[in-house]
């Protein structure tokens, strides 16, 4: 095992070509080559399968090529030269372990799983692991999903998002403040493009007594919606008077508007890609962090914002829900501006709606409508 013959020139050429191709491709060293690929890379010397085989075999012997199986066909991927050199120095068990770690790629693999798969004794596995670690062939990382388990992967690999948890994890822990700030930033960005701001305007119904007079003198009814227009006959029923008054006032002002909608179908609201573009180009977030953020991650934040009723999907993009602004919001739930929204409904406002013992409440049991303390409190609460 110790001494391997020096690599032949043809093999050397093939390896260099493959390595270059692998580096060029997006997958890097993970790039796999099938037999036809090898043939084309080998050029003159590999025109025939018979001529190619020895070259490939030689590279495999030198640990410069790794064999795996993809969709039933054999395929090959390259290894860096120094790793290959180190590997050739390893013994059989270690090699086996190394190949398992390598297979796991950036996902990493647990020590226990290696042991199970290779059927090698615990102590030997442990010994091999330390050796490989010392030789800087593999490294252990901490996985978000299983922080207690040691996860191993090849030394030169960057742990995948599955392992680190993605951009929103900082050393295996959820970076909540980042998420919060990002949410605010997104809302800020989307808000600017969703609604046109304006000075507060009151939308009123034009309640002009002039018109009413006109109408009645001419014998022409004023409007179909009597309640909105007709002057109510003065009533001497005192109990009704205040209620009417209030309603009357509400009728006059439909609402106070500060956000104007853009006409429908005329506007493309920002999509997750657009938001990602904005986030990564703005200076609000540390450059290294911004670089890491993917569209999928932004989509994730956007999704939670949709679930929180702060963004709404329009066509392919998003806009903020009316009345939502980008001020920091603590998720208390009662932050809604719009009237009774957020204040619950008939059920939750009644004591029974939030009663912890509603299921035990019965007509003849110890808990009933008469003995209920929540009702007493509710009624006393005014």
């Amino acid at each position: 095992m110790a001494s391997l013959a020096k690599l032949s020139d043809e093999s050397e050429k093939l390896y260099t070509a493959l390595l270059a191709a692998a580096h060029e491709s997006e997958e890097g060293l993970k790039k796999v080559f099938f037999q036809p690929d090898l043939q084309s890379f080998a050029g003159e010397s590999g025109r025939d399968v018979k001529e190619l085989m020895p070259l490939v075999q030689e590279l495999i012997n030198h640990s410069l090529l790794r064999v795996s199986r993809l969709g039933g066909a054999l395929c090959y991927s390259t290894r860096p030269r120094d790793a290959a050199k180190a590997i050739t120095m390893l013994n059989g068990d270690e090699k086996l372990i190394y190949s398992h770690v390598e297979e796991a790629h950036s996902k990493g693999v647990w020590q226990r799983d290696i042991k199970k798969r290779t059927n090698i004794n615990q102590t030997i596995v442990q010994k091999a692991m330390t050796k490989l670690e010392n030789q800087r062939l593999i490294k252990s990382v901490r996985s978000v999903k299983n922080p207690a388990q040691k996860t191993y992967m090849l030394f030169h690999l960057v742990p995948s998002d599955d392992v680190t948890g993605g951009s929103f994890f900082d050393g295996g822990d959820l970076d909540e403040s980042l998420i919060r700030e990002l949410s605010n930033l997104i809302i800020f960005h989307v808000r600017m493009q969703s609604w046109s701001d304006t000075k507060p305007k009151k939308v009123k119904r034009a309640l002009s007594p002039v018109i009413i007079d006109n109408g009645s003198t001419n014998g022409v009814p004023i409007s179909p919606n009597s309640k909105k227009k007709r002057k109510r006959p003065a009533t001497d029923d005192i109990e009704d008077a205040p209620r009417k008054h209030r309603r009357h006032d509400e009728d006059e002002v439909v609402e106070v508007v500060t956000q104007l909608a853009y006409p429908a179908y005329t506007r493309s609201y920002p999509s997750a890609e657009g938001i990602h573009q904005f986030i990564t180009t703005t200076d609000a977030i540390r450059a290294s962090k911004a670089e890491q953020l993917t569209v999928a991650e932004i989509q994730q934040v956007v999704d939670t914002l949709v679930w929180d009723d702060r963004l709404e999907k329009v066509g392919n993009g998003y806009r903020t829900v009316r009345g939502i602004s980008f001020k920091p919001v603590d998720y208390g739930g009662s932050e809604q501006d719009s009237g009774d929204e957020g204040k619950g409904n008939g059920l939750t406002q009644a004591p029974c709606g939030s009663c912890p013992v509603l299921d035990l409440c019965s007509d003849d049991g110890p808990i009933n409508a008469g003995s209920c303390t929540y009702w007493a409190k509710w009624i006393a609460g005014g």
Partner: protein
Amino acid sequence: MAQNLAALCIALVETHLGELSAQIFATLAEHGRLTIQTLVARSRIPSRRVRAGLANLLEGQLLLHFAADDGAPTYYSVNWRNAYNLARHANIVELVDDRYDERAGHMVGNILQLGHARIGDLADAYELAPGSKRDSGIDTTANGVTKPGMANGEAGIGAPSHAQAPSANEFHATLRALLRSGILVKVAPRSYMPSSDLQEQLEETVVLQFPDRKVSGTKKQAEFRAGMGALKRAWRDEDQYSDLHDSGSQGTFKRPGEQFQSSNKRVKLNGASSGLDAVTGGQEVPKLSSDLIVRVDFTRCTLALRNRRLQQLAKNFLGGVAAEVYGALLQVLEGKERGVCDALPDDEDEDEGNISPVANISEIAEILDPTIDLSITIKDAASRKRMPNGTGKHLKTEHGDEDDDAALLGIKPEAQSDSENESSANGYTAHRDRANRLKLIEKHLFLLEEHMHCFCQRARSHTQNSNEWQVNFPALTSTLAVTELDRTIRSRYGQIPLRIVRMLREKGKLDEKIVASDAMMRIKDVRAILTDLQFRGILEAQELPKDNNRQPSRTLYFWYFDIERVQSLFLQQTYKAMTRTLQRIPVERERFRTAIDKAERSDIKGREEQKLDAVDKQRLREWREVEERLLAQVARMDDMVAILRDFSGWDTSLAT
């Protein structure tokens, strides 16, 4: 019948009709249909009192009764829907108040309380007809109507205040408008029969047309079904109010619909949709027959309530102006719909099948309040110099250069200089204003369509310039229900649990790790929330053991949210909460017993102001406040029941 609902109905009957009726109702609820004899035996109430109670219940339409033929004993059974509807009275009165006016609301309140009413008796109660002074038992004061059973000192005293009392003309106009809108319907003897008996009678009638009373073979069966359908429709039409058949003999006679095509053209231009107002201007209204018996149609009211909720939902998302437009659209559609849960599908050859009704923009414009400025909430819609305004000619706008100021105020300055004659003479301007307004309405409709809830759709959108719009009610009613669930969850458990619930609703069954990562939360926080929600019955977990041992540690749990289950859970809780609220009323009454008793003494009743001292008056006021709050809470919970149960029209648990 669910236990909670039964308890609620009994509590409602007790609040409205007293203990005796409640007891009889409870017995019937427990045992199903009974004859008087068995009812007496089961309830252990003397036969005379049972009969009195039954009469009471029947008057309130809370019972169904059926006798197979003349000699056969009559069977009584409860009418769940109507019993529950007692809780809806307050909401319906408010709805009518809102849509028509308080006079109409008052009238509807009276009819609701009576169950059904003869027009003649109603008229007597309002002191319209000087004729027979029957004791119709109508309480014409404002208080007693919506708050029955109230120990209200002022309730039940005095004659109707004259501000409330309508003229005969107004009275009939109001009733007619209510009948036309379907809120009131004619009562026919068949409304009191259980639906199964009705069905049997139908079949019996139809089968007679077949020789030997045999229906065999597919062809015959199809014929039979068609016959059934035809007869059902015939009965339905027979039972329906129509202007034509139910007019009284006196008064001018008008054909149905003539209200709309009134000779006064201006009325039409103003969109006299209700007819109610069109006639207050002094026209003679045809009187209704005094023998016509009317009741309130709850399905129709449910429809109207649903539309109001939808409008509210739209308002939350798109603001009041768009919501007003939407409300108008819904109202147009409402007039074209039969009912939420119309049990009988229309025949295909009648060509009114399942095509959902469409509304034309100009119809919407007619109903829409012409004084609302539609341009103000849409960006750039107001860029025109002359802003479009109401359809009414005299509501024309003169916008000079101070365009912006006016826009800021949001009110169109009424063109007072612009006299009416002028504006109506200038037909071109009026036409252009109208066209602009229609365009603005369309813009709002597009906004509503664009929203993710898809509040409305353009009918036949493939044709380029379709002016017709429709609403996908089934989808929207379930949206309403789901938002109601969300609101409940949020106010009970907070925003974060709601986030998880919504995620699970969208994505289906998920493992807690995925829940945590998608909700962007720490797994241990998520776990706590998930378990809590499971405990409350909101979420459920499906176990998926990894091996045969089924150890919890080697099991995956997939969490999911079952909308229907939670919906019925909340519904049951609402029933229970309503029952408890109603049951709390007598408990509270006990606290104010002395003051109430004093006020109800025969020598004081009617003269509370003079006879009671300040302390008692204060106590009475407090009591009234408490009772009103409790009843208002019941009404609010009824809103929720309506959303969760009635709007979709799918729920048949109340079928009678």
